[in-house]
């Protein structure tokens, strides 16, 4: 006996354990019935999508989802409820339901009432009940679900954030009793709104509401619960009603559901249906997979601070003042965000262009510098060349100076002698003194001209007459020519030929060409002759030629005579002609050399005339 008793006890224990194990591990039918209070609006659609998404991801077994929308915001009453119960009872007779998901307080209330009759022992998962609802409905321990916390206080806080110095809140919605989600705000109102003016636009006609929200005082904000009807018999989904109100409102509208953002709500701590759906689905799946609902405590969640970017802009609300973790919706992408590749391309193009412009500017600057430098160099070289030429021309200078000095000396001596005589002719002495003065000025003029010629002057453009330039230079060279037994002949143009240029440098060109010609004739025994000619070329330029009766230029050297350091002379440096060319090019002219038919060489240059 003693042995049987323990055996019995063992068997009973085993059975009990087995039963409990079976109870714990009981696999429920993989199908659920989702009951909501929807009217078919987007809120419930999103909630259902969130739920389906999680259910769909359930890996092991396919879960069948049935869905009934009870449309409790538009219909109600005992008869309706009874009809619904009968309808559902008959519809789902014979269907294996693993769990009921009830969305909203109204639905959950009905489901709990119907449970004993329709779904004995079937777990119930509620969604979107707030704590007050839970307290009111007192669900049994095997009923669990998702509790959302959606106090009016949150919306008021948001209103204070978006309207600094808020003094009035405007509550817009259906009659409190008709509301299925925000019903509890009524009880909260007195505590939350302490210190604030409250305008209640509850259960009013849409047309009146629209009129009144257009004339709200400053420092007020609208808090929208939900409107399902216009009070005159027409029904809307609440987001449509919100759109109509937002259109007319002159103040920001704080909302408490994600689906109220798009129609014109500025945002708030909002119900996020997809999140609620997902949470409910997660719990449901755990139950279907065998967990006991008593062991799954209700979860909190399903609200989030979300704001509407265009509305924030409209009411000039800075993002930084929003609650931490706020999500901003409908942010207009910036140009760069919207046209990312185009922007990059434009930026790149601008960059390349800017680089190019910088490069060109730099190059322009460099070229300008180089031009200035080159002109400076030319001026310096021309100066050196003039100095060299001048030493060659010392005879001319001496002659030019000695001529007036000779006259002065002779005149002075004459005057001296006349004064020493008994009866000096004062009239003649006066004349002599005048002559001395004039000759002295002449000598001074020679010195001045010479200094001008030798001065290191910067390139100076003036209006000058080529005839004058040529005459003066030939005169300057006459002594030298005579000493070298060279006849100088100048044929100038009848009228003045005016060009823009540097007189000294152009004189230097003529001087270099003539000296070059004279040098070329050193070996010619007789008939040394240099002829200078100036004539109008074609109305727009003047042509000047310097020809000689020398041996000419060897044909193979014709192209080289203007090269720097090219010379055929024993003591030449080869810079005279190259400087002549540099100067002529700087005057926008042309210069070339040719051999004459009757022997001798001719150098030509042209210069553009002033218009």
């Amino acid at each position, binding site marked *: 006996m003693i042995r049987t008793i323990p055996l019995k006890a063992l068997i009973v224990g085993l059975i009990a354990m087995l039963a409990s194990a079976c109870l714990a591990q009981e696999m429920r039918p993989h199908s659920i019935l989702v009951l909501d209070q929807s009217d078919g609006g987007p809120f419930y659609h999103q909630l259902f999508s969130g739920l389906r998404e999680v259910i769909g991801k359930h890996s092991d077994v396919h879960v069948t989802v049935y869905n009934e929308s009870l449309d409790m915001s538009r219909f109600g009453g005992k008869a309706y409820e009874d009809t619904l119960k009968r309808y559902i009872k008959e519809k789902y007779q014979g269907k294996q339901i693993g769990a009921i998901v009830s969305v909203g307080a109204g639905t959950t209330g009905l489901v709990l009432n119907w449970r004993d009759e329709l779904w004995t022992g079937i777990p119930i998962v509620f969604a979107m009940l707030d704590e007050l609802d839970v307290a009111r409905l007192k669900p049994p321990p095997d009923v669990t679900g998702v509790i959302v916390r959606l106090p009016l206080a949150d919306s008021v806080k948001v209103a204070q954030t978006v309207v600094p110095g808020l003094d009035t809140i405007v509550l817009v919605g259906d009659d409190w009793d008709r509301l299925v989600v925000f019903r509890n705000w009524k009880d909260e109102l007195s505590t939350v709104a302490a210190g604030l003016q409250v305008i209640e636009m509850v259960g009013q006609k849409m047309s009146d509401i629209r009129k009144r929200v257009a004339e709200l005082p400053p420092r007020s904000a609208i808090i929208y619960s939900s409107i399902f009807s216009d009070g005159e018999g027409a029904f809307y989904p609440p987001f449509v009603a919100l759109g109509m109100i937002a259109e007319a409102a002159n103040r920001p509208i704080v909302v408490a559901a994600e689906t109220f953002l798009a129609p014109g709500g500025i945002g708030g701590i909002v119900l996020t249906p997809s999140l609620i759906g997902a949470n409910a689905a997660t719990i449901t799946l755990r139950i279907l997979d065998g967990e006991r609902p008593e062991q799954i405590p209700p979860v909190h969640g399903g609200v989030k601070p979300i704001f509407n970017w265009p509305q924030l802009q409209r009411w000039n609300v800075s993002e930084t003042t929003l609650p931490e973790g706020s999500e901003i919706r409908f942010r207009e992408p910036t140009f760069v965000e919207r046209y990312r590749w185009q922007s990059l391309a434009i930026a790149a193009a601008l960059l390349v262009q800017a680089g190019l412009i910088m490069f060109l500017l730099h190059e322009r600057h460099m070229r300008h510098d180089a031009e200035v430098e080159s002109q400076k160099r030319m001026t310096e070289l021309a100066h050196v060349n003039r100095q060299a030429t001048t030493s060659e021309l010392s005879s001319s200078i001496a002659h030019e100076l000695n001529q007036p000095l000779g006259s002065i000396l002779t005149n002075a001596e*004459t005057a001296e002698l006349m004064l020493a005589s008994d009866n000096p002719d004062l009239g*003649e002495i006066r004349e002599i003194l005048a002559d001395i003065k004039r000759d002295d000025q002449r000598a001074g003029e020679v010195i001045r001209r010479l200094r001008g010629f030798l001065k290191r002057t910067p390139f100076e453009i003036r209006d000058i007459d080529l005839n004058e330039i040529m005459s003066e230079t030939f005169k300057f060279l006459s002594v030298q020519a005579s000493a070298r037994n060279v006849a100088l002949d100048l044929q100038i143009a009848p009228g003045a030929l005016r060009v823009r240029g540097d007189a000294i440098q152009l004189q230097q060109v003529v001087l270099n060409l003539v000296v070059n010609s004279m040098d070329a004739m050193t070996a010619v025994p007789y008939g040394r002759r240099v002829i200078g000619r100036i004539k109008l070329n074609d109305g727009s330029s003047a042509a000047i030629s310097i020809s000689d009766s020398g041996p000419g230029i060897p044909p193979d050297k014709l192209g080289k005579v203007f090269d720097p350091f090219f010379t055929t002379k024993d003591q030449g440096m080869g810079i005279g002609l190259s400087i002549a060319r540099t100067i002529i090019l700087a005057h926008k002219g042309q210069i070339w050399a040719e051999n004459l038919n009757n022997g001798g060489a001719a150098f030509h240059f042209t210069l553009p005339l002033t218009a």
Partner: protein
Amino acid sequence: MSARIYVVDDDASFRTAIERRLKLAGYQVATYPSAQQLLDCLPDENEPGCILLDVQIPGMSGPDLQGRLHELGSVLPIVFLTGYTDTPTTVRAVKAGAEDFLTKPIGSEQLLGVIERALARHATERCERQKLAEMRALVADLTARERQVFGLVVRGKLNKQTAHDLGTTERTIKAHRHQVMEKLKVRSLAELVTVAERLGLLD
């Protein structure tokens, strides 16, 4: 009679100055701005004179004018006066018989000294030329036979040799010789030889 100075210079101021000074020194002065104008109106060679010539003058140069005058048989002394002296021109001018080559500015004392010397030389030369001309005239008066005798005697031939050369007697030669000395107005054989030499008959 004062000498005449011919000034050729393209510098008007200098022409005036030098004209004043030369006139003050007692000379007659003629000025020309170019060589051609002097050639158009040649100076009188028989009067005492001197040419003051600039080197650099337009058209014909000083040295060119010098050559041209030389070709025309002028013996007037030429003094070059130039603003600048270069060696080749100087050498050329002096070789061609220039009296002097001066550089402006020049003190009038020095210039007048040069002019005086040139005039003196010209005067001597002129005197010399006159004498030669006279001698040439005298020689021209000799008969053919007398000229033959004159030619042989001044070459140192004895009367006998001369007579032999000419195929006549020593006595006849003596008579001719006497006649020649009479006509040429010389008293000794030495003088006769000098005349022949100066007339260039001994070459």
